């Protein structure tokens, strides 16, 4: 439901009534073909909010070409008819008769069991931006505006130009922390995403124009996420980006340039001129946060983001209401996606009894048998003027009629529109078609739609072939209409040749054992197991060591003041007593065989081996503190890790005896030991520093850091620590502090850049932020055939969009096994992994795409090449009559074709892409 807002939420978890107010679009979604003619005729200019108001559109429009829903809408604030009852020019221009000014606003009462709030984030106010010349100087732009300027579908079609004079900027400055980490702007927090997008935008500029000089003015580079530091380094080294640690004081205009004044890290006053300034704007709470909070009955935090607790990061204050994404706190896309999946799992936990009660299942007619003789229908699409403006579509259609076995041809303005689907169905019935070819746009987006049409009428969806005469003809040969038309004919002829040989492929499903195996009994594993169990499924929770709890056992406090001991107690008790969870301690996973839906694992327990069967696997094997060999760790009793200090601080008596501490950040991380950032050590150092200050306010604490990465709301605690007198001193990787023995004591020597001289201290303790390493998982990774990163963390299927899934279907990851992260993020991710794991468990089956490989057992010689090459563990050797033969595990096969292309005896064939089909296509190319 678009143009819709929540007006009220009555009732309680499991049984809410939500009132939703929906404004009209004034264009009927079902009729609109998104042809764009209405926009062309509308006389009213409207600034294009999608393009950050850098471009103009007109009252009827859609936000961007790929927008969903694909239909246009009319801007009610600007439309002449809606405001002055004149005009209505658009109505006769619409051939689909979709424009409907009689649409009225609606109020809907929806019965729902749970609510997920994901309203996103708001904008930093212009008043804050004005301090940096925004609004006064046209070449000061926000990062979002710059994003549009760089984009190929943006106002300048991807050409990077200055708004003032359209010239190419030669020197660009990025200013970080605009509206973030700045209490004068009202936002004390760090927005957690700006460092990454600034590096990205700078990289994109350099790829467009390698000679552009780019400076990034920053306070701390907070590229803390998985693989982020490596990307930043790569960007800096490949593209020679200049990073300047400084907050810019002022932006002035100087001729046609912008002059920045700033103080560098040595404290010197500097000025520099730039052609363009990009403000890296932070994430503000949503504009309507307060009204949404009142409507939904939830609490906000001091910055108007949704208030959550560290151990319940997805639960809003009202039971049954969950939160995901930036509204919970500034965060990037992978974190938002994780929370989204996790909140879906949370909703499923409370509603599992009602699962499936309100879904509408689509029924298909049974498939009709098809005649031997191919009867092919060809449908050629104009795509408005998108194809028809270049390719002579009727000529292509006439040509198709001349091809062998083609018994029906049609061309339509939009083959993808609803009425065209009816035309296709009618033609199938009338001409008794048993193969369908559509020549239109890309199968990537539209093949499923046409296949659905085939299924609706009872034709197997594999009897369909699509030709892309848009990308491959009208787009790439836009200036050669004759040649584009000739090529379209070639492609249609080739598709028809292939279509002749198409045969129906079975719609397969594989049943799923509705049980899960969770490997690892730390907080991530326990959370995942509990979520799966609460969603109604049985779960085996397997822990290597004697106790559940993992690292949580060693934590005494959290930065936000929660009690980890209490959490451990609660979660462990729930996990141990849950009727659907079976806990195994002192147990190793010896072997895993099978595939999604049907795994069998051998557990080696204290009492012997046990084989369990399950449908999915959640990997939560965790990590631990890295063990260092430098800074005298293990040699001097004065040198501790942060966790060891935390242990001491749990006894106030001992804490009071500590008068001076030097903390060394990145002692293990971001260097020779571990190349990556361990993400949680900065927060840990601030936590311990604050705790010590609380117990012994007179204690001197020095934190030697590379970048302080207290992202999000952690920044408040970093500020508090500075206010309480904790001294933070920056050091560079090339010039690390030195720790030396000094009789029974210890000496730390480091360079204070601001003072410009070396400082020597003799603290009571040196505390090392040693970083996080994953537990040993090579064996397990091999068993599951899952790739690891260079650093031995599990590699997810897609860093942004599939953050808990693995390349192998049915296996999910969470917690430190995925990457170093603080406890709240582990909990969110664990719930997300449980959410994804419960998808096949709830369905009870896995649907298999028909495009899978199949082995001709007669030709197979059992060489095993296919098994060794398959990246998805989807083909294996079995014994058939004492001979080795390959067999596809259809549930795991992704249809990539690697096995078929490497089979030395051509025994393996891909559904929908058989050798015969492809050869016929190639032969047809030579025919004409």
């Amino acid at each position: 439901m678009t143009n819709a807002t929540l007006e009220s939420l009555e009732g309680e978890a499991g049984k809410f009534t939500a009132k939703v107010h929906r404004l009209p679009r004034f264009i009927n979604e079902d009729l609109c073909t998104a042809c764009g003619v209405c926009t062309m005729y509308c006389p009213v200019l409207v600034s294009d909010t999608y393009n950050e108001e850098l471009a103009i559109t007109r009252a009827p429009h859609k936000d961007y070409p790929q927008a969903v829903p694909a239909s246009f809408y009319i801007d009610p604030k600007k439309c002449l008819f809606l405001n002055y009852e004149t005009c209505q020019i658009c109505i006769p221009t619409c051939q689909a008769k979709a424009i409907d000014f009689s649409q009225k606003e609606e109020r809907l009462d929806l019965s729902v069991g749970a609510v997920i709030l994901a309203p996103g984030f708001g904008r930093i106010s212009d008043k804050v931006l004005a301090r940096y010349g925004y609004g006064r100087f046209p070449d000061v732009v926000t990062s979002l505006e710059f994003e549009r300027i760089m984009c190929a579908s943006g106002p300048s079609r991807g050409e990077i130009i200055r708004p003032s004079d359209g010239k190419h900027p030669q020197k660009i400055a990025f200013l970080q922390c605009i509206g973030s980490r700045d209490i004068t702007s009202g936002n004390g927090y760090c927005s957690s995403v700006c460092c990454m997008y600034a590096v990205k935008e700078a990289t994109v500029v350099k790829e467009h124009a390698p000679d552009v000089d780019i400076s990034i003015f920053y306070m701390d580079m907070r590229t803390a996420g998985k693989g982020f530091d490596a990307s930043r380094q790569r960007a800096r080294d490949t593209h020679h980006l200049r990073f300047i640690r400084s907050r810019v004081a002022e932006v002035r205009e100087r001729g046609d340039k912008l002059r920045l004044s700033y103080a560098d890290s040595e404290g010197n006053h500097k000025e520099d001129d730039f052609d363009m300034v990009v403000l890296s704007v932070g994430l503000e709470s949503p504009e309507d946060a307060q009204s949404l909070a009142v409507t939904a009955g939830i609490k906000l935090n001091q910055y108007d983001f949704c208030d959550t607790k560290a151990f319940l990061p997805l639960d809003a204050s009202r039971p049954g209401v969950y939160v995901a994404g930036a509204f919970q706190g500034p965060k990037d896309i992978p974190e938002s996606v994780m929370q989204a999946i996790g909140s879906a799992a949370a909703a499923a936990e409370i509603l599992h009894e009602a699962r499936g009660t309100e879904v509408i299942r689509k029924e298909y007619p049974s498939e009709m048998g098809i005649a031997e003789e191919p009867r092919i229908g060809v449908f050629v699409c104009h795509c408005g003027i998108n194809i028809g403006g270049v390719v002579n579509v009727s000529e292509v259609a006439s040509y198709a009629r001349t091809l062998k076995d083609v018994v029906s041809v049609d061309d339509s303005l939009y083959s993808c529109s609803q009425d065209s689907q009816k035309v296709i169905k009618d033609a199938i019935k009338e001409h008794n078609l048993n193969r369908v070819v559509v020549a239109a746009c890309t199968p990537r987006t539209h093949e499923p739609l046409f296949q659905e049409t085939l299924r609706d009428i009872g034709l197997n969806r594999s009897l369909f072939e699509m030709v892309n005469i848009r990308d491959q003809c009208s787009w790439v040969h836009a200036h050669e209409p004759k040649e584009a038309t000739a090529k379209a004919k070639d492609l249609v002829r080739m598709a028809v040749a292939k279509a002749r040989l198409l045969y129906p492929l079975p719609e397969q499903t594989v049943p799923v054992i509705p049980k899960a195996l969770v490997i690892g009994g730390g907080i991530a594993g326990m959370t995942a197991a509990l979520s799966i169990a609460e969603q109604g499924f049985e779960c085996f929770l397997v822990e290597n060591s004697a106790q559940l709890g993992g690292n949580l056992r060693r934590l005494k406090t959290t930065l936000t003041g929660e009690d980890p001991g209490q959490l451990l107690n609660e979660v462990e008790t729930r996990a141990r007593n849950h009727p659907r969870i079976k806990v195994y301690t002192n147990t190793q996973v010896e072997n895993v065989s099978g595939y999604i839906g049907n795994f069998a694992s051998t557990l080696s327990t204290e009492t012997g081996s046990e084989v369990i069967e399950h449908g999915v696997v959640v990997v939560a094997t965790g990590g631990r503190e890295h063990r260092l060999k430098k800074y005298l760790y293990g040699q001097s009793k004065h040198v501790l890790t942060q966790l060891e200090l935390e242990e001491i601080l749990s006894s106030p008596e001992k804490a009071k005896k500590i008068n001076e501490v030097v903390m060394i950040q990145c002692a293990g991380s971001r260097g020779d030991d571990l190349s990556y950032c361990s993400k949680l050590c900065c927060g840990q150092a601030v936590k311990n520093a604050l705790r010590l200050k609380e117990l012994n306010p007179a204690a001197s604490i020095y934190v030697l850091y590379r970048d302080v990465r207290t992202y999000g709301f952690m920044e408040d605690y970093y500020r508090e620590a500075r206010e309480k007198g904790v001294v933070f001193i920056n050091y560079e990787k090339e010039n690390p502090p030195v720790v030396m023995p000094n009789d029974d004591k210890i000496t730390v020597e480091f360079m204070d850049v601001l003072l410009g001289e070396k400082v020597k201290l003799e603290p009571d303790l040196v505390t090392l932020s040693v970083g996080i390493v994953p537990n040993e998982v090579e064996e397990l990774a091999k068993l599951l055939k899952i790739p690891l990163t260079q650093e031995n963390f599990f590699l997810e299927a897609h860093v942004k969009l599939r953050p808990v899934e693995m390349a192998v279907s049915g296996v999910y990851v969470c917690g430190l096994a995925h990457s170093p992260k603080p406890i709240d993020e582990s909990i969110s991710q664990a719930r997300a992994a449980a959410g994804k794991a419960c998808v096949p468990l709830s369905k009870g089956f896995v649907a298999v795409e028909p495009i899978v490989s199949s082995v001709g057992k007669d030709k197979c010689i059992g060489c095993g090449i296919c098994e060794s090459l398959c990246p998805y563990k989807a083909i294996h050797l079995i014994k058939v009559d004492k001979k080795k033969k390959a067999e596809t595990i259809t549930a795991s096969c992704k249809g990539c074709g690697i096995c078929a292309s490497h089979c030395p005896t051509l025994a393996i064939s891909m559904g929908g892409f058989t050798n015969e089909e492809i050869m016929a296509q190639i032969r047809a190319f030579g025919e004409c």
Partner: protein
Amino acid sequence: MGREHGAKSGAVLVVGGGVAGVQAALDLAEMGFHVYLVEKSASIGGAMARLDKTFPTNDCAL
């Protein structure tokens, strides 16, 4: 009231059609729940749809 077995609704309301809202809606639908996805603007996609590319892989955002 509404607490006993079977009285719970099998539908979920998702407020916001950005990447988080859409992801939650898709997963809930896959898990067998009816989803109402409420978006205040005219199209879903939110802020991510405005991005050109994404860090660190520079994949297209759309």
